[in-house]
C-alpha cells in the first residue's frame, strides 16, 4: 500500500523536491507515494526567479512554467489549485483545506514559503500598494504600465506613470528595472546608505547606484518612509518621507524583505521560531511532518535564495525514501538579474580576526572585485562589473580550497592565472590614461590632456621642464606636476622616469595633488567614487585618506557634495574639541575678540548651569569652557545660541579666530579701525572648510599688538592703508609672515584675503598649513596670482563667495534643532531591554 504524501505549497522548493523524489522512485521502479498538493496560487508550478524577466517583457508566463498540468497527470499527482490548507490535525494526521477538503497523510511536507513584509506606515494597504512576490503582483504592475502607455498614446503630455519602489535590495531593484523598461518613472527608496546593503559592500553599492541611475531610475538613499498618501481615501497617490519630501506615485512597490510564512505550522503546534524549526533531516518538532524552503529555519538561519532550497529539497526527498541524508546549511551567492548590471556576491565579506582583503579596481572598465581571505581560503566575494569569475571563486569558497599558491594573481581570475611566473603589474598611469582628451590637467593655466600629449609627441619633449616651457602646464602652482609626469610616462613609455610621488596613504599610489586634480578632471563626487575611479587598494579607505578625500570633495563641489561625516575627525563631527578624558571644550565666537557684559553674563550662567569645571581665556581672544560632557553639548549650545553666540569653530579646519587690537578707536597710536576690520573679516571668512586651520590677526599700527606677523593671514594697518601678510606660523614651526602686498581700502583687504583663502582651499593638501603650502607653491607665485592678476583674484573671490553661500550655517544651531542628534546621546539600556535614545 502506498503512503499518502501531502505537500502544502507548490513553490520552487517542493517542485524540486518532487523531481528528486520521482527520479529516485523511477530508479527503484516503484512509486512509493500517493501525492497530493495544495496550492494557494491558482496555477501550476513556475520558476519564481524568472518573474523579473516577465516584468521586463523578456519572457511570458508560459516560458517560466516548470511543471505543467500534463506533468502532474503523468505522475498521478493530485494538485488542488487556489486552495490552501487551513488546519493540520497532527494527532489524526489530517489536513483541511479552505474549500473543505480533508486529506489524511502519512508524511506531510510544509512548504508555505515566505510572506513579503509591509512597512508599518499609514496607508500601507491602499489600492496600488503592491508587493513583488508572485505572478499576480507582476500582472498588476504590467497592467498599470500598460494603462499609462495607452493614456500616453492619446495625450503625450499626460502626467503620471510614477512608481515608487520602497527597498533597494535584490527584489526592489529588479522590480524597478522592469518597471522602467515598461516606461514608468521609477524612484527607488533605500533606508540605508547604499543599495543592496545585505549583499554588497559600500564600494560596490556605490557603483551599483550609479548604474541604476544611468538606467533612468531615481535613487534616494537614507530615505525614511513616513506614510503612503492618498487623495481619495482609497488608492495610492504618493509617498511621504520623514524629511518632508513627497513623491507622486501611481503605484508603490514594497520590497522590504520577506519573513517565513509560519502561521499554519504555528497553529498546529509545530515548533516555530523565526521560521518553522527543522533539524538536519528537515524534520519539524512533530513526527512525520517535514518542512522546507523559505518557511523554515535551519540552524538559526532562514534562507531567501534558491540554492539552499534545492539543497534542502534533495535531503528531504532522500529522507522520505528512508535513505539517510542530512542538510547541514548552505553558503549562498547572489546575482542581480538586471540586464546591463553585473554583480555577484557570496559568503561573508565582513572583516574579522585574521581576515584580509584583496581588492582590484579597474576604473576604465568599471570593475570592482574584492575577495576576503581567511586562513588562506576565500570566505567572501564581491564582484561588480565583471562577474565571470564568480563561480570560479565560489568554488574555492565552498570547498575551502587553499589559495596560498595563487595569492598574487588570484584576483585577476581564472583566465589570467599565469602558466608559469609572471602576472599583471599595476599600471601607475591607468588613471590618467582613462581621462578624456579634454580633461583639464593644469587648472592655473587651463591646459587639457590632449594639449600636453600632443606637444610631447609633436615637439618630441622629454623633460618636465620642456613640457612646462611649451605648454605652461604645471608652471604655476605646480600642483599638477605629478599628473603631467604621468602623461609623459604614458606618451614616452620606459624612456621617462618621473620623480617619485609620496602616496597619500597605503591605500593608493597617488599623492594628494594627483587625487585633487583627478577629482576635478574626472568629476568625481563621492568618497566611494574616488576610491573606485582612482583604483584604491582597500575597500573602505583608512583614517588618513578618508578625511582628506572628504575635504577635497567639499572644496571642489560646495553645492552638491554631501559631507561624509563618518570620514571626519571627531572634533568636526561633534563641533567641539575633544579632551583627554573624553569630555569636550566649547568656544563660542567673540567677533574680533570683542564681547559685552551681556555675553559674559550668559557664559557665566551656562558655566553654572552645566557645572562646567574650567573656564579659560584663549590666545585667540575668546573664552573656552572645558570639561563638558558630550551629551550636554546641544543643551549648552542652546543656551549660548539664545544669548546670540554661534560656534567659534575652534575645532575646525577652517577660520578660527581673528585677533585684533583696539585700533584708532581707543589707541593713541592706532592708524585704522583694526577692531572693526577684524570683525568684518571674521564675519566674511568664517564657515568654509580649509585644508588646515586658518588664524588671522589685524593690528592697528606697526607696533603689532595683535601679533599679525605670525598668523596664517595678517593685516598691519598703516597711515596709508593696509599691509597684507600671510604664511606665518607660531606652532611646531616659528615663522614670520611673508608680505603679500599693500592695499588702501577695507574692501580691498577683504577681497584679497578671501581670494588668498580660496587659492589655499583649492591647492593646499589636507592638513597642510598655509605656510607649508606657500613654501611648496612659492610665495612669488601666490603674489602673482592674488596681487598682480586681478582677473584671477576675482575668480578666486567669486568661488569663495559661492562656497560661503552654503557653508555659513551655524553648526551649533543646526544641532540644537536636532541634526545628527544620535551623535550626542548615549544608547540607554537601563530601562528594561529597550531602544536607543
Amino acid at each position: 500500500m502506498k503512503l499518502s504524501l501531502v505537500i502544502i505549497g507548490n513553490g520552487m522548493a517542493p517542485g524540486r523536491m518532487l523531481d528528486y523524489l520521482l527520479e529516485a522512485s523511477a530508479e527503484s521502479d516503484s512509486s512509493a507515494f500517493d501525492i497530493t498538493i495544495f496550492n494557494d496560487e491558482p496555477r501550476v508550478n513556475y520558476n519564481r526567479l524568472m518573474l523579473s524577466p516577465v516584468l521586463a517583457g523578456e519572457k511570458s508566463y508560459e516560458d517560466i512554467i516548470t511543471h505543467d498540468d500534463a506533468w502532474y497527470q503523468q505522475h498521478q499527482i493530485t494538485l488542488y489549485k487556489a486552495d490552501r490548507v487551513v488546519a493540520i490535525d497532527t494527532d489524526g494526521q489530517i489536513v483541511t483545506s479552505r474549500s473543505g477538503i480533508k486529506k489524511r497523510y502519512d508524511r506531510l511536507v510544509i512548504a508555505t514559503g515566505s510572506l513579503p513584509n509591509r512597512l508599518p506606515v499609514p496607508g500601507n494597504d491602499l489600492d496600488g500598494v503592491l508587493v513583488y512576490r508572485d505572478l499576480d503582483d507582476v500582472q498588476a504592475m504590467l497592467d498599470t504600465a500598460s494603462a499609462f502607455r495607452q493614456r500616453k498614446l492619446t495625450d503625450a503630455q499626460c502626467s503620471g506613470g510614477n512608481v515608487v519602489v520602497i527597498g533597494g535590495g535584490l527584489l526592489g531593484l529588479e522590480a524597478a528595472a522592469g518597471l522602467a523598461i515598461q516606461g514608468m518613472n521609477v524612484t527607488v527608496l533605500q533606508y540605508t546608505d547604499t543599495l543592496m546593503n545585505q549583499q554588497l559592500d559600500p564600494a560596490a553599492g556605490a557603483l551599483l547606484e550609479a548604474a541604476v541611475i544611468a538606467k533612468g531610475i531615481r535613487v534616494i538613499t537614507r530615505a525614511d518612509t513616513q506614510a503612503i498618501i492618498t487623495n481619495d481615501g482609497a488608492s495610492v497617490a504618493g509617498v511621504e518621507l520623514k524629511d518632508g519630501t513627497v513623491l507622486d506615485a501611481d503605484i508603490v512597490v514594497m520590497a522590504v524583505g520577506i519573513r517565513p510564512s509560519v502561521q499554519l505550522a504555528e497553529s498546529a503546534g509545530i515548533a516555530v521560531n523565526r521560521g518553522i524549526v527543522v533539524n538536519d533531516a528537515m524534520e519539524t518538532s512533530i513526527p512525520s511532518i517535514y518542512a522546507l524552503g523559505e518557511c523554515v529555519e535551519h540552524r538559526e538561519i532562514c534562507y531567501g535564495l534558491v540554492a539552499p532550497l534545492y539543497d534542502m529539497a534533495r535531503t528531504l526527498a532522500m529522507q522520505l525514501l528512508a535513505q539517510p541524508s542530512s542538510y547541514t546549511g548552505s553558503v549562498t551567492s547572489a546575482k542581480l538579474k538586471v540586464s546591463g548590471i553585473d554583480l555577484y556576491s557570496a559568503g561573508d565579506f565582513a572583516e574579522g580576526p585574521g581576515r584580509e582583503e584583496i581588492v582590484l579596481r579597474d576604473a576604465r572598465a568599471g570593475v570592482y572585485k574584492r575577495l576576503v581571505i581567511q586562513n588562506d581560503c576565500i570566505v567572501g566575494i564581491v564582484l561588480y562589473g565583471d562577474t565571470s569569475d564568480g563561480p570560479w571563486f565560489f568554488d574555492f569558497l565552498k570547498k575551502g580550497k587553499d589559495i596560498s599558491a595563487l595569492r598574487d594573481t588570484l584576483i585577476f581570475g581564472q583566465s589570467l592565472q599565469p602558466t608559469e611566473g609572471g602576472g599583471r603589474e599595476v599600471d601607475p598611469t591607468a588613471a590618467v590614461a582613462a581621462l578624456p582628451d579634454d580633461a583639464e590637467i593644469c587648472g592655473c593655466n587651463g591646459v587639457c590632456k590632449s594639449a600636453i600629449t600632443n606637444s610631447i609627441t609633436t615637439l618630441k619633449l622629454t623633460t618636465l621642464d620642456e613640457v612646462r616651457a611649451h605648454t605652461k602646464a604645471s608652471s604655476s602652482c605646480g600642483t599638477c606636476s605629478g599628473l603631467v609626469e604621468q602623461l609623459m610616462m604614458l606618451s614616452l613609455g620606459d624612456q621617462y622616469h618621473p620623480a617619485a610621488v609620496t602616496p597619500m596613504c597605503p591605500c593608493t599610489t597617488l599623492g594628494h595633488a594627483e587625487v585633487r586634480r583627478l577629482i576635478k578632471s574626472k568629476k568625481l563626487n563621492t568618497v566611494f567614487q574616488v576610491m573606485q575611479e582612482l583604483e584604491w587598494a582597500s575597500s573602505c579607505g583608512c583614517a588618513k585618506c578618508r578625511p582628506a578625500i572628504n575635504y577635497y570633495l567639499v572644496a571642489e563641489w560646495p553645492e552638491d557634495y554631501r559631507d561624509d561625516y563618518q570620514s571626519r575627525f571627531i572634533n568636526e563631527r561633534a563641533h567641539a574639541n575633544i579632551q583627554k578624558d573624553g569630555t569636550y571644550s566649547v568656544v563660542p565666537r567673540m567677533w574680533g575678540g570683542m564681547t559685552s557684559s551681556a555675553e559674559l553674563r550668559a557664559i557665566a550662567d551656562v558655566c553654572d548651569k552645566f557645572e562646567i569645571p574650567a573656564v579659560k581665556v584663549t590666545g585667540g581672544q575668546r573664552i573656552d569652557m572645558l570639561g563638558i560632557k558630550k551629551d550636554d553639548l546641544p543643551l549648552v549650545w542652546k543656551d549660548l545660541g539664545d544669548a546670540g553666540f554661534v560656534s567659534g569653530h575652534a575645532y575646525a579646519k577652517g577660520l578660527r579666530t581673528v585677533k585684533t587690537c583696539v585700533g584708532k578707536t581707543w589707541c593713541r597710536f592706532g592708524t585704522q579701525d583694526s577692531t572693526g576690520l577684524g570683525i568684518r573679516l571674521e564675519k566674511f571668512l568664517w564657515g568654509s572648510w580649509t585644508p588646515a586651520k586658518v588664524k588671522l590677526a589685524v593690528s592697528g599700527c606697526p607696533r603689532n599688538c595683535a601679533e599679525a606677523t605670525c598668523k596664517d593671514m595678517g593685516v598691519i594697518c598703516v597711515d596709508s592703508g593696509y599691509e597684507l601678510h600671510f604664511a606665518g606660523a607660531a606652532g611646531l614651526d616659528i615663522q614670520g609672515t611673508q608680505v603679500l602686498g599693500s592695499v588702501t581700502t577695507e574692501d580691498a583687504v577683504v577681497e584679497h584675503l578671501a581670494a588668498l583663502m580660496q587659492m589655499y582651499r583649492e591647492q593646499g593638501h589636507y592638513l597642510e598649513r598655509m605656510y607649508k603650502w606657500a613654501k611648496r607653491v612659492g610665495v612669488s607665485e601666490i603674489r602673482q596670482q592674488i596681487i598682480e592678476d586681478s582677473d584671477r583674484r576675482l575668480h578666486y573671490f567669486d568661488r569663495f563667495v559661492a562656497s560661503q553661500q552654503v557653508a555659513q550655517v551655524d553648526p551649533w544651531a543646526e544641532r540644537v534643532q536636532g541634526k545628527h542628534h544620535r551623535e550626542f546621546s548615549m544608547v540607554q539600556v537601563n530601562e528594561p531591554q529597550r531602544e536607543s535614545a
Partner: protein
Amino acid sequence: MKQSTTTCRHVQTEDRWLDVASREDIPQRGARRLRVGDQTVAIFRTANDTFHALVDACPHQAGPLSEGIVHGDCVTCPLHNWTISLVTGQAQGADEGAVQSYPVRLFDHRVQIDLSRVPVPVKKLTGGEMSSGGENVG
C-alpha cells in the same frame, strides 16, 4: 548529526543577550556609546555591516574609541591615532595593548550585546600630546 530543535530556541531567548539598539541607530563606519554601570561601552558598525563592542577606552591613554574614525575592521583613536582592532581589541602596528571586547550579534535588525564577561579595569590617565586631528586652540 541531528540538531535538537529546542537548542535553537534556547539560544535566542537566552538572557545574556541585551537588546541595545536597532541596527539603523548606529551609522555605518560609526559608533554609539552605551553606559554600563560607571563604564562606557562603544558599539561599532563597520562599512560591511558587522557590529562590534569594545570598552570605550583606548589601551594607550583611555581615549574614547567611539569617537574615532572606523575603517575596515579597525578604529583609529581620536586622541593619538592608535589603531585598534574592533574584533580583538588589540592595538595594531607597532603599538602594544588591548581593550576588552564583548560579543555582539544582530538579531532581527536589533543589535544585541553580551555583557556577561567581567570588564578589565581601565588604565588611569597620564599626560600626553594631542593628535593632529584636534589640538586645543582658542
